[in-house]
């Protein structure tokens, strides 16, 4: 006579075993049986999957952020799923923090104000404005420029260890876009001081028959991959991500930048 293990193993043991798997495995295990379902909702599990410094990061959230109040009353399980879907704004509103659902690893978006954008403070070239669909208070809109140089850096020590991260420029085009179909841009990511990094050259606004490297995000913005890097222990200094077109011959217009999104590489 086959006995099922739920007669043998108490639910807490099942929860402990599940906590040793992965977030994806735990979600899937909810379809196994009622006991697994119940065991999968335990704070023991999701507390383990949350980044260890999660609460510290939240406490540094902008005080105007309503997330702070909301998250302080949540269970670990609720907090995990909340952060997967609702990044919180930290660091004086210049960055957002969230979690990658499948792995529990940290994700950050550097807001436009946090990036180094050449000529960004010259109103003739760039404009700063509020848009409702941005998570940040301001986005940068390109009026016109010849020298396009957008760069963002992130300290590897705030990232999750042993993770390959991918950086994306999060942007849109306005109706006055120009130049990006004529001239390709250089996308580059490098890690630390000694890494030369890799550069890709692509058309951001390709004409027909030219490959499109950008894709639409769920929040309605577009994103294009700038590159990737592997963060081992967080002691490699900064990762630098950039998009540039600096041949100085082509006028460019109409690029709206929300920020640079840095998240774990999809492991599939």
């Amino acid at each position, binding site marked *: 006579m086959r006995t099922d293990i739920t007669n043998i193993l108490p639910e*807490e043991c099942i929860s402990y075993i*599940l906590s040793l798997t992965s977030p*994806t*495995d735990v*979600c*899937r*295990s909810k379809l196994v*049986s009622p006991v697994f379902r119940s065991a999968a909702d335990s704070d023991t599990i999701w507390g383990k999957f949350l980044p260890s410094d999660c609460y510290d990061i939240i406490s540094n959230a902008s005080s105007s952020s309503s997330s702070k109040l909301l998250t302080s009353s949540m269970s670990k399980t609720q907090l995990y799923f909340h952060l*997967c*879907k609702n990044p919180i704004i930290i660091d004086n509103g210049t960055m957002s923090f969230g979690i990658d659902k499948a792995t529990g690893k940290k994700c950050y978006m550097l807001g436009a104000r946090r990036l180094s954008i050449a000529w960004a403070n010259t109103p003739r070239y760039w404009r700063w404005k509020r848009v409702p669909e941005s998570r940040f208070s301001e986005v940068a809109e390109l009026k016109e420029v010849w020298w396009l140089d957008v760069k963002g850096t992130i300290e590897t020590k705030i990232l999750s260890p042993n993770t390959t991260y991918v950086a994306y420029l999060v942007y849109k085009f306005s109706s006055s876009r120009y130049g990006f179909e004529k001239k390709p841009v250089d996308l580059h990511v490098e890690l630390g001081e000694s890494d030369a990094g890799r550069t890709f050259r692509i058309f951001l606004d390709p004409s027909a028959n030219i490959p499109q490297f950008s894709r639409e995000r769920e929040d309605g913005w577009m994103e294009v991959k700038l590159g990737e890097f592997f963060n081992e222990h967080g002691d490699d200094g900064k990762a630098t991500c950039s998009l540039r077109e600096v041949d100085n011959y082509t006028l460019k217009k109409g690029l709206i930048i929300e920020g640079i999104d840095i998240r774990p590489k999809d492991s599939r």
Partner: protein
Amino acid sequence: MKSYIWLQTVDGSIQQVEQEIAMFCPMICHEVIQKGMGSSKNYAISLPQQVNPAMLSLILDYCRFHQVPGRSNKERKSFDEKFIRMDTKRLCELTSAADSLQLKPLVDLTSRALARIIEGKAPEEIREIFHLPDDLTEEEKLEPLKNATDDPRIRLLNRLYAKKRKELKEREKLKNVEVDEELVDDRSVDDLLSFINGDDGDSKGIKTSKSKKKNRRRKDLLKSTSAHEATKNHNKESNGLNSVCRSAEVGQIPPGVGATTNLQDVEDDIFPNKNEFDDGDIDDEIDPTLKEKIDREVEDFARRLNSDWPERMQEILSLGQEKKPVHLSLNGKGS
């Protein structure tokens, strides 16, 4: 002179074990020190019921090895790797037994081994390994997926499930109204569903002409909805399910009444942008349209319960961060 601790397992048998080995288990340690038990046969420590003689023997082997202080980490690791080579059922029993004795290092060891077994497996595979019955209710299987990234496909699925659940409840209620005994209360949701899943046969021939018409109209409707990616592969599955749905209705449920009220909601919820529909479809009679919608949902529902599901669930969950090209393959293993 060696000291021994007396232990009694749940089957009544008593044995003596060297003190330093037995005391490696916190629970036994506690009994000896706090309660003064275990010093003689008459005062044998009663072990928890999870610790049968076989489990006790394994646990003592573990303790016997690890309580020796001089061993290197490499030796310990090597021992552990060999030690946990046993079938899954034993691993579970051992986890439970070690847990009851509060022997954390062993609980960790066996739990990790079990975690490695579970990792990456689909729910049916896990059920297979652990001999678990498939006893989640349809309600539970249909529970809304945690839509962590606001994926519109997941939102649609959740809405479809909500409608399915509602409709199941309607069916239950309407069946209860019927005088026909054999079919009323006994027909559980499970039965209805296995009927849908299994029975493709009889009424197929009779229904084909209507099915074709439905397929075409369904295609029209599907093309014009924003959520067509999630539902587009239904056409093939329609035949068997149409007939089943029809015969289920004709036999027991007074058509039109309960179904009508239910499905007004369906239209609004699942297809909020009515403007996207071809006008031709809306001009049709209410009944066929509604029935078609039930059919579509039933197909979808039945599909969710076959073995495609875990792969798709995994896909959907992993889709979270990166937006993949539009066409999510839902057709899995086909009909």
